[in-house]
Structure formats: structure tokens, C-alpha cells
């Protein structure tokens, strides 16, 4: 086979791989086909990787004339075994509650790899006529976005894991540092582009030092960007960083002129952008407002605010709550992140199973930002063997509340607060909420009257239809299950 034919076949194989990504993502629109979709996407990846490896071995390939040498083969194979081994090990052992930090970590390494590819290409072409203005721009963009994603995702992962405190961290002058690093990156971009355009005469060393400074500034920027953001805003941060990594991969694709990187990076960039927007909308806050940070306490239910018991709340005993549930026809469970913190998913499903055995219709109402990443609560419940047809999205379930005899709220707070609909002076006014207050009766399992992430009182608790069952989520659910059994 002639080399042009080989090159064309490689290009087509990349295209098939990219098509696998698109079709795989498309199949994720239903839980029934999603697993196949992911496997299709993985097959596309395997094809792209294997074909690239074989191509680089052919003597006529344009990347390394004569075929890549022993060093390159060793780097690729050993790198794959080491990186793949670490990835596999982490993916196998991670707990579902820890999924957000793992996704963040994979995000970090993806962004880091994109930055390294851009930087290495620049080292090769700096000082040669190959360095064009557009390449200089893409190198800086790839290096900056990749580095910001790397350090930002590591910090986000650390916050989620509890290694870095989850509460917003600000220090005097932190905004100034963020601004300065951004300034350095922009100034560096201008200098390097002018160098590439021939407007400035710079030695190759100067240009490499400039790129180095840009990377350091970007790494610091990533850290100071994520530190001031509170734990419960993480769904937005993770989505945004995911979008950044995709963009960084696309920029690296522009640098090395590789279409499959451009296509895949753009796909991921777009998907991350959509999720970021959805999450911000579900919190009724702008993306800018979230990224500025300093909001909230860092953890739902972890608020150190005053124990505000406004109005009179009605306390309810386990037996009364069990009777309400056992003689209902329709029960909607409203789980929040507090449920996962208390590891109460299984206890929750046991209660739901028991109610279903009594012929009661049970479903779960899940707010888009329940958990630490988009859709996190669904995964946690699926792990506890809740069948997915019972998992209802907000828009789907809200009209059903008025037909529900009991809404059982476990570990959710702000997303059930009717003040978001009615009280214009409330900080959460306008936030889309679950219409729990429309149910015929409401049972709230909660440890105390402590306010949620937004630090405000929940009007739902003062509703005459609401009974407060003061207990830890898991203990409360287990006690309810026992009480229903005893009836």
C-alpha cells in the first residue's frame, strides 16, 4: 500500500472513531441503551488509538519519517500500562458517593495531557518557520486552558474528598492574585503572537520562558478560581471544568493538526457547556456568580447559621409517620444529598419496597442539583437497586405532587422551600423547586432545624400539613420501615 493510501485510511479510521463518540453519546439519551452507547464510544476510542499506533510504525508516516523508534514505542506502551492501570484501579474501587472527585481527577489529567501536547509541540517548532501566528495562539490557548483545568480540577477533587476544606476559602488579596495571573497569561499570549508574527524579535529561549510563565500563571489561576467556591456549587464547577478539558483537547488538536482531537474536544466542550448552564439554571444563579464564589457554607445541612425555628413546627413520631405512609396510595420520596451523606440509600429503598408490596405507588422526585455533580443522586439510588422508571425528573414529577398522599423529604432542604416561588425577598426566589408543599401531607426526616446551604429557613417546615420527624436519615428510615412492618 502506498503511503497516501495508508494516510487516508488512518484519517478515515479516526473519523469512524469520532462517529462512535457521537453515536455513543446519542445512545445515552435512554437508560435502556446508554450502556451500549458507552461501549460504542469505547470501541471508537480503541480504534483511533490502535490505528494511530500502527500508523506511527509505518516507515512513511509524516510524523516520524522512517517509523517511530524504540524510545517512542516504549513511552507509549509503558505510559499506557501505567496510566491505564492507575485509571482502571481507581475506576474499579471508587465508591459511587466519591464519583464527583474521580470525574474531577480524570478531568485534571485530561486537561494536563492536552497542555503537555501543546507545550511539547511548541518546543519543537519554536524558532523555526513552522511557527505561525495561528499555531502560537492555539498553543497558548491549549496550554492555558489545559493548565487551569488541571490545577482547578485537582483542587475541586480535593474539596470533594475533604482534603481541601469544602467551605469557600478566601484570603486577603486572593482576587488580586487571580487578576494578576490572568493578566500574565494575556500579556504572554500577546508577546508570543507578536513574536510569531515577527513584530518582536525574540530568541527561542525567551519564547519558551514566556510560555513557561504563562503555564505557571494558569496553574495558579486554576487554584485561586476554585478555592473560593463552596461544596454545594460543585455540580457547576465540575461541568465547567469538563467543558474546559474538552476545549483544551480541541486546542491541542489545532496545534498538532489532528481532526479527531478537534472533533472530540468540541463535542465534550459543548456537552460540558450545556450541563454547566443547566446546573446554574437549576440553582437560579448565573455561572459568573457561582465562579466568583464565597457563596454558602460548603455543605448542605452543614450550615453553621443560627438554629432558626420560625413559626411553629409540628413534630411527628415514627409510628404516626408510618401510619401515614402505610395507608397512602401514592408516596413521593424527595431525597437530597443529606441522604447520601448518611449512607441511607439502601434504607430508603427498603422502605420503598415495603410500601410497594402494600400496593402503594412509590416514586422519587430528584432535583437536578441533588448531589455533588449533575445527576449524582440518580446514580446513588440506582446503586441501591432502585429501578430507573421510579426516578423522576423535576418537570416530570412536579404535577404529580398534588395527587400524592405523602411526600417524604429526606436530606433535601432548599430545593423544597416554597419561598422560592412566593417570597420575592428570599435569596432563593426564582429557583426551580420541587413542589413538595402541594402534596396532601408531608413528612420531613431531619436531624434538627438547622438551615440548609443557602442559610435560610424553610417555610415548608412551618406548613400545617408538614410533620417533622427529627432523626438521622438512616436511623429515621430504618425506624419507619420497622414501624410499617409492625402494622
Amino acid at each position: 500500500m502506498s503511503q497516501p493510501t495508508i494516510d487516508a485510511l488512518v484519517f478515515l479510521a479516526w473519523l469512524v472513531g469520532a462517529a462512535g463518540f457521537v453515536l455513543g453519546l446519542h445512545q445515552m439519551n435512554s437508560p435502556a441503551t446508554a450502556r451500549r452507547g458507552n461501549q460504542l464510544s469505547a470501541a471508537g476510542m480503541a480504534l483511533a488509538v490502535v490505528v494511530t499506533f500502527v500508523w506511527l510504525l509505518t516507515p512513511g508516516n509524516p510524523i516520524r519519517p522512517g517509523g517511530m523508534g524504540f524510545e517512542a514505542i516504549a513511552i507509549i506502551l509503558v505510559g499506557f500500562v501505567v496510566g491505564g492501570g492507575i485509571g482502571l484501579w481507581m475506576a474499579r474501587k471508587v465508591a459511587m458517593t466519591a464519583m464527583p472527585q474521580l470525574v474531577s481527577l480524570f478531568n485534571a489529567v485530561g486537561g494536563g495531557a492536552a497542555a503537555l501536547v501543546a507545550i511539547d509541540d511548541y518546543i519543537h517548532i519554536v524558532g523555526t518557520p513552522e511557527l505561525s501566528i495561528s499555531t502560537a495562539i492555539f498553543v497558548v490557548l491549549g496550554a492555558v486552558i489545559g493548565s487551569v483545568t488541571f490545577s482547578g480540577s485537582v483542587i475541586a477533587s480535593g474539596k470533594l474528598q475533604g482534603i481541601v476544606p469544602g467551605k469557600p476559602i478566601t484570603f486577603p488579596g486572593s482576587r488580586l492574585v487571580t487578576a494578576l495571573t490572568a493578566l500574565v497569561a494575556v500579556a504572554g499570549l500577546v508577546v508570543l503572537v507578536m513574536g510569531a508574527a515577527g513584530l518582536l524579535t525574540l530568541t527561542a529561549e525567551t519564547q519558551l520562558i514566556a510560555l513557561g510563565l504563562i503555564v505557571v500563571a494558569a496553574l495558579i489561576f486554576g487554584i485561586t478560581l476554585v478555592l473560593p467556591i463552596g461544596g454545594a456549587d460543585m455540580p457547576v464547577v465540575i461541568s465547567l471544568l469538563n467543558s474546559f478539558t474538552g476545549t483544551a483537547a480541541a486546542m491541542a488538536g489545532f496545534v498538532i493538526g489532528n481532526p479527531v482531537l478537534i472533533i472530540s474536544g468540541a463535542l465534550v466542550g459543548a456537552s460540558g457547556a450545556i450541563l454547566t448552564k443547566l446546573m446554574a439554571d437549576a440553582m437560579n444563579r448565573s455561572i459568573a456568580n457561582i465562579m466568583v464564589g464565597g457563596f454558602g457554607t460548603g455543605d448542605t445541612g452543614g450550615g453553621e447559621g443560627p438554629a432558626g425555628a420560625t413559626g411553629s413546627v409540628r413534630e411527628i413520631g415514627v409510628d404516626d409517620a408510618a401510619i401515614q405512609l402505610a395507608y397512602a396510595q401514592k408516596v413521593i420520596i424527595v431525597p437530597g444529598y443529606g441522604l447520601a451523606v448518611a449512607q441511607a440509600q439502601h434504607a430508603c429503598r427498603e422502605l420503598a419496597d415495603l410500601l410497594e408490596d402494600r400496593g402503594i405507588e412509590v416514586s422519587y422526585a430528584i432535583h437536578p442539583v441533588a448531589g455533588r455533580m449533575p445527576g449524582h443522586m440518580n446514580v446513588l439510588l440506582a446503586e441501591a437497586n432502585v429501578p430507573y422508571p421510579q426516578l423522576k425528573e423535576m418537570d416530570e414529577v412536579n404535577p404529580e405532587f398534588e395527587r400524592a398522599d405523602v411526600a417524604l423529604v429526606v436530606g433535601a432542604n432548599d430545593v423544597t422551600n416554597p419561598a422560592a416561588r412566593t417570597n420575592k425577598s428570599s435569596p432563593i426566589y426564582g429557583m426551580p423547586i420541587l413542589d413538595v408543599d402541594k402534596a396532601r401531607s408531608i413528612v420531613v426526616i431531619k436531624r434538627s432545624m438547622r438551615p440548609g446551604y443557602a442559610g435560610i429557613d424553610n417555610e415548608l417546615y412551618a406548613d400545617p400539613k408538614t410533620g417533622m420527624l427529627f432523626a438521622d436519615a438512616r436511623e429515621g428510615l430504618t425506624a419507619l420501615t420497622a414501624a410499617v412492618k409492625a402494622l
Partner: protein
Amino acid sequence: MSPELLNAIAIFVLAILVGFEVISKVPATLHTPLMSGANSIHGIVMVGAMLIAASADNWVSYALAFVAMVFGAANVVGGYVVTDRMLQMFRKRPK
């Protein structure tokens, strides 16, 4: 701008539009696996790592290519495996 660059920009813009179109249909129930799956896809940067490994001819480049390769491979393998682990838990009927 060269024709190659213009082509690449066209591909980039079209792929963004495809991304918007495909993703906006995914139900909220699957947002975590979706993000994790998208996460694996940007592991394609591993192909970039292979290309820089092939063209490397000094120790700096070897080192950069190796780290990029480790990062990319962790991203790809870990991402797909963990996404699969999550998706197999989504069942219509409980076990």
C-alpha cells in the same frame, strides 16, 4: 490563514453544534454517566500524546510525552470503566 486551518475551524464549529444537539436530549437521570462518558472522550488527547512521543528526539520531549501518555491513558481507561460500572446499575427491574 491556510485552507487546512479553515477546514479545521469548520470541523470544530460543526462538532460543537453536533455536541449541543446530541447532549440536550439526555435526561437528567443520566447526567452523571453522561459527564463521565464525555470525560472519557476527551481522553482522545492520548492520540496527541502518541504523536508527540513519536516525534520526540530529546529527553525533555520524552518526559513530556510520557507524562501526557500516562495522563491520557488514565483518563481513557478509567473513564470508560467507571461509566460502564455506573450504567450497569441502571435497571428497569431490581435484581
